């Protein structure tokens, strides 16, 4: 797993949506597909990419496989978000200074 792989996996809007859905709680593949217009093979493929990027992990429960967010990959995404959560306030302070300096 690399940071690049993780963000490449999330660059696809469908995979980003799958990841977001699992972030609200683990579920099996059919629950995951409900409400999304995506075929079962396509879902399997997306889940496979997400698993290889360590964004999603699976747990077998009897006949079902339950998918959930993998804390390893989630931590990398959280780090990226935290970096920019700290970045923007300083930029906005600079923007406010500029707005004061600008003529109407």
């Amino acid at each position, binding site marked *: 797993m690399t940071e690049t792989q993780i963000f490449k996996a999330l660059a696809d809007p469908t995979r980003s949506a799958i990841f977001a859905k699992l972030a609200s709680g683990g579920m099996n593949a059919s629950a995951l597909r409900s409400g999304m217009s995506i075929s079962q093979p396509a879902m399997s493929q997306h889940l496979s990419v997400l698993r290889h990027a360590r964004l999603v992990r699976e747990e077998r429960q009897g006949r079902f496989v339950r998918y959930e967010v993998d804390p390893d990959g989630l931590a990398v995404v959280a780090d990226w978000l935290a970096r920019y959560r700290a970045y*923007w306030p300083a930029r906005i302070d600079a923007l406010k200074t500029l707005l004061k300096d600008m003529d109407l």
Partner: protein
Amino acid sequence: MTDADALILEYDLDAPPAKVWRAISVPALRDRWLPAAALLDPEGVAVTPGQEVRYRMRDAAPPFIESHVTFHIAPTEDGGTRLRIVHRPARIANDNGHTLMRAA
């Protein structure tokens, strides 16, 4: 917010929308609070002129994750401006490695 991989921030600015629009979209002004070094496209893309502009960014450190940041502005009741920042890893996979995985 339903995204697990996007940063969404809102700020109230004490300046009218037309002035804030210039500050976020005119390169010479934008450069004074958001340096071009952080951007892949210093000109930006006006998604909705006067309301929404988008830039492509790249992390300053390896592995140089690319991202998209959108600034959306709207007037507030007191004559000021609400600035909404949506910042997320780039949605366009610019590597050929995963093209096959994109079929949905």
